[in-house]
């Protein structure tokens, strides 16, 4: 990294910042932010080029997006501190204007892939370079419009679009498989004609390789609440804000995990 920090340092700091941001503002949605953060960081630091576009269709991971943008210098620290405050641009879901790096307001699920398809098709019609990456959740595939978009992007051979699914297996009020059965998702995507690969959504090397590799769809198998023991794979962390003791424990766990990780590497 240009400022001397390793990618692992950036990931560690981003995860802690994401926690603090949510704790200080007293809001939830942490589970799906933590499952998506590695994907966002890999995309922004190791995959996206100057002509590429990223659309966060799972807008409830706005916190992870804002933090990721801050690691790239696209959002300032002062701006991050405005998260969820009155008068902020940094609302609970990405806003339609005012943050240059965010192309579309999202938050109602099932919009992003169609928007990405429009941008990808537009790039092709104009002969412009670059790809469009779009991150959806897995519960989002309950929305019929996602399947409309999937058929559209395959029909129009949008090979400049990469669909990423943050497959953490949990959604608003139940397990994804119990609410509306989604699996086998890779087979379904492949059945549409989309080259699809599945990766560990917390393995940075595998993730970045997959996102660079020319696949049409990358299903990132993730853990909701990744990195915090009492949040991992627990539906309630779609909603709950952190209490002080929980926040302190979460910080200890994340710092400990990073220390362990560093020790293991060395």
């Amino acid at each position, binding site marked *: 990294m240009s400022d001397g920090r390793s990618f692992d340092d950036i990931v560690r700091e981003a995860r802690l910042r994401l926690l603090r941001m949510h704790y200080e503002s007293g809001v939830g949605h942490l589970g799906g932010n933590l499952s998506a953060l590695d994907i966002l960081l890999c995309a922004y630091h190791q995959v996206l080029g100057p002509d590429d576009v990223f659309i966060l269709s799972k807008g409830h991971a706005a916190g992870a997006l804002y933090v990721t943008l801050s690691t790239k210098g696209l959002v300032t620290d002062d701006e991050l501190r405005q998260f969820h405050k009155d008068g902020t641009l940094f609302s609970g879901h990405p806003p*339609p*204007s005012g943050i240059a790096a965010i*192309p*579309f*307001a*999202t*938050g*109602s699920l*099932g*919009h992003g892939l*169609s*928007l*990405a*398809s*429009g*941008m*990808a*098709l*537009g*790039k092709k*019609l*104009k002969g*412009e370079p670059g790809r469009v990456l779009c991150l959806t959740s897995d519960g989002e595939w309950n929305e*019929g*419009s996602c399947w*409309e*978009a999937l*058929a*559209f992007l395959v*029909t*129009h051979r949008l090979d400049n679009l990469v669909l990423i699914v943050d497959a953490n297996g949990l959604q608003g009020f139940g397990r994804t498989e119990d609410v509306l059965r989604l699996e086998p998702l890779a087979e379904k995507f492949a059945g549409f004609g989309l080259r699809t690969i599945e990766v560990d959504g917390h393995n940075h090397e595998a993730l970045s390789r997959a996102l660079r590799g020319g696949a049409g769809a990358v299903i990132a198998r993730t853990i909701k609440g990744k990195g915090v023991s009492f949040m991992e794979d627990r539906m309630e962390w779609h909603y709950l804000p952190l209490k002080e003791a929980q926040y302190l424990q979460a910080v200890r766990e994340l710092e400990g995990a990073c220390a362990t990780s560093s020790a293991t590497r060395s």
Partner: protein
Amino acid sequence: MRNVFRDSLVAQAARPEFVFLTGDLGFMALEPLRAALGARFINAGVAEQNMVSVAAGLAKVGLRPWAYSIAPFLYARPFEQIRNDVCFHDLPVVLVGNGGGYGYGVMGGTHHALGDYGALLTLPNLRVFIPAFDEDVVVMVGRLFEEPHPVYLRLGVSEKPASLGLPPYAPWRRLVRGNGPCLLVAGPLVGAIAGAAVALDEETRPNIWVLSELPFPPPPPEFHADVRRADSLMVVEEHVAAGGVGAMLALHLLGQGQAPRRFRHRAALGYVSGRYGSQQFHRHECGLDPESVLADLITTS
């Protein structure tokens, strides 16, 4: 009106930024446009939600997308996509709804758009264009390529009588002059009403205005003068009263201190008998046909 719309767009096909999307509609009508646009003519399938968001994405990269379907399929099914993806971002997408009001007649209520512009005008940045005549479509199509905001274009069937001289296009136009009451109409049904009115003697003949853009620009002084002289105004539209031109104009006139003594509104009433029929059948049931409008206007003003 649809064929004039198509021909006007074919004339614009050389614009490199022009992209046309259809929700799998246009058989026996849009084929010349498809031929003219090539890859920039996109049949997005029976998937209006995706079509509208794709249009937003296309506009985001600097293209000028027009998205077309039967009016209710275009505005009601993808309403959230219009709100979030097009209007929140103030993108220059033209949404074209064919068959506004009871335009699809006996096809039934699923194919009617009785609350389209009222619903859409609750959204930020969006403008509505309601051509009354084929001639309006030609002017509007050229203008809409320069419009920097989202647009809903409500197409119908031109009903211009041969006897009616048409003034140049403007958002507010007086089509018929007389010494009678004042009538404002939105939409193509003004043609038949104006055609019937020109046969009346000058003393009873109403001043008939047509309004074609919403939110409307301030009415011209001549309109206020007509309302003031008659001290009465009737508004007619093929749209439900809620969110309609009648409510908008009444509020405006009240706010300006220009409200006449008498204000009447004739609007779409849904399905009065519970039966279905042609556009004329439904207009008649709602009292929107020329005979009902003029009889009420002249005998009670």
